[in-house]
C-alpha cells in the first residue's frame, strides 16, 4: 500500500484533517482508458452547463 501521500499529514498540523488519495485513486487519474470515458462524461456535463448559460 502506498503511504507516500499519507506521510505528508502532520499530526494536529494544518494537514491533519485532509483526505489523501490512495494509489488506486491516483492511478485512475492518468489511466488512459478510464480517462477517455471521463473525457466524454465531463464534456457532456460542460455542454449542458454551457447550454443553460446561453
Amino acid at each position, binding site marked *: 500500500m502506498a503511504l507516500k*501521500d499519507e506521510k*505528508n*499529514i502532520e499530526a494536529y498540523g*494544518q*494537514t491533519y*484533517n*485532509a*483526505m*489523501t*488519495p490512495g494509489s488506486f485513486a*491516483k492511478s*485512475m*487519474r*492518468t*489511466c*488512459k482508458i478510464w*480517462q*477517455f470515458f*471521463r*473525457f466524454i462524461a*465531463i*464534456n457532456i*456535463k*460542460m455542454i*449542458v*452547463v*454551457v447550454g*443553460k*448559460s*446561453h
Partner: protein
Amino acid sequence: MARLVVLGGGVAGHTTATFAAKWLGSGHEVVVVTPNSKWNWIPSNIWVGVGQMSKEEVTFDLAPVYAKAGINYKQAKALSLNPEGNESSDKSFVTIEYTEAGKAGQTETIEYDYLVNATGPKLNFGATPGLGEGSELGEHTVSVCTADHAVHAASKLKESIEKMKNGERQKFLIGTGHGMCTCQGAAFEYIFNIEHELNKAGVRDMADMQWISNESFLGDFGMGGLHIKSMDYTVSSKIFAESLFVERNVKWLIGAHVSKVEAGSIDYELLDGSTGKETFDFAMLIPPFAGVGLKAFAKDGSDITDTVFAPNGFMKVDANYAAGAYENWKASDWPSTYQNPTYSNLFAAGIAFAPPHPISKPMAAPSGTPITPTPPRTGMPSGIIGKAVAYSVCDLITKGENAHLHEASMADMGAACVASTGKGVFDGTAAAMTVYPVVPDFDKYPGTGRDTDHTFGEIGLAGHWIKHILHFLFIWKAKLKFGWTMIPE
C-alpha cells in the same frame, strides 16, 4: 450609419466587436481601440510560465483579424470619455492615445453612437509596496498575467531548477499579493504546474513549496468556493483543495494580506491579526486588479468620473451598489444588461464592469485591513457578457433606442473552468469544474447557493486534454476561422 467603439481586445472586447461586426455588416462601423498589437489566450500563459509553451503559441496579431472582419482597429489606449460631447457638439466621444509604433503618443478623439468598455484590469502591482510600480511588475517576483511576464517567469524558473540540480534548496512562494486580489485559480494552476515540472526535472525533493492567498479557506477561488457531489455526498471545494495540497506536499498560508515585498521576502498580515514574514527564492504573486483609469467629463468639461466609474475604476452598470452588508446580498444585485445607469449608450463587459460587491464573504483583520477575495470574471462569463452586450447594441442600432436589452447575469449563468495541475499528454492532470450559477443564489438554491446537479469537479488526465483542446479551439475562434461562431463562449 452608426458607430460602435469597443475599448479592449481581450476575451470580452474581442467577442463584442467580432459578433457586432458580423451582425451589423458593412452598413455600420465597429471600431476597436486596444493598446496591444496581439491577442493573448491568457489561460495558457500558465504553460508559458513553466516553459511548456512559447509566447507565439498563445498570441497572434490582431490587425489582420480585424481587417478580415471589417473592424476599424486602432492600436491605442483610451484616456477619457465625453458621453455628453463637449461645448461645440452633443456627440459622445472618446479620447485615445496611440501606442502603435510611429504614432505613439498622438491623441485623437473618436465620436461614437455606442461604446463598450471592455478594457479589462489594470494589473495594480503598485498597490503592494515592492510588488511593482503602478501597473509595472517589480524586480523581486515574477508574474504570469501577460505572455511577456510568463516568458520571464519561465526563465527564472529554469534558473531555480538549475540551482536545485546543483544541490541548492529553493523556496517557492505562489499566490496572491494583496488582501483584495482575485484570480486565485491562476495562482493555483501555476503552483501545481511548477510542482509537476519540478517532479519531471527530478528536483522536487530540493523544493519547499508554499501557497499564500487572501482566501479564508482553501478552494474559495474568489467565489465562496463550490460544493460538489461526490459518492452521493455534497462536498465543499475546501476538502478537495486541501487534499490536493497535502498530496503534492504544498503548504498553505491563507487569510493573508501581503503588505510588503522585498528581495527574498514578504511581510503579511492575517485575518487573526497576526503578522509575519515569509522568505522565498522564487515568488509569483497575483496583483490586485483595478480599472484602467479612464476619466469621464461632462459637456462643460467638469469631471464626472465618479458618476460613470466606481472608486475601483471599473464602470458602473445596472448593478445594486447599495446592497450593504453580506447578510443583505442577493443574486439580483448582479447586473444583467451591463448598461451604464447614467448614459444609455455606454456598456461595460468582462472585468471592466464594476461588480456590486464580492461573492466571497467580506472579512478583515482586527486592524481593519480588508482581506477578501474579489469576484473572478473568467473567460466563459466574460465571453457570454460580451456577446449579450453585442446583441443589445446591435438591436439598439437596428431597431431603435427602445429595443430590448439582452441579459446575461452571472447569477443566471454557469461557468466551466479547467484548472491545470500539470501539463502532459499522458501524465498531465487538470481539475475540470462546472459551477452553476457563478454567483450563488441562496434563495433559489438554499444551502450551497448552487445547483449541485450542475456543479461538479474532478481531477484527471481528461481535464488536461480538455484544457489543451480549448486552447486550440478558442484561438481558432478568436482568429475568426471557419465555423468560429459555432464555438460557444
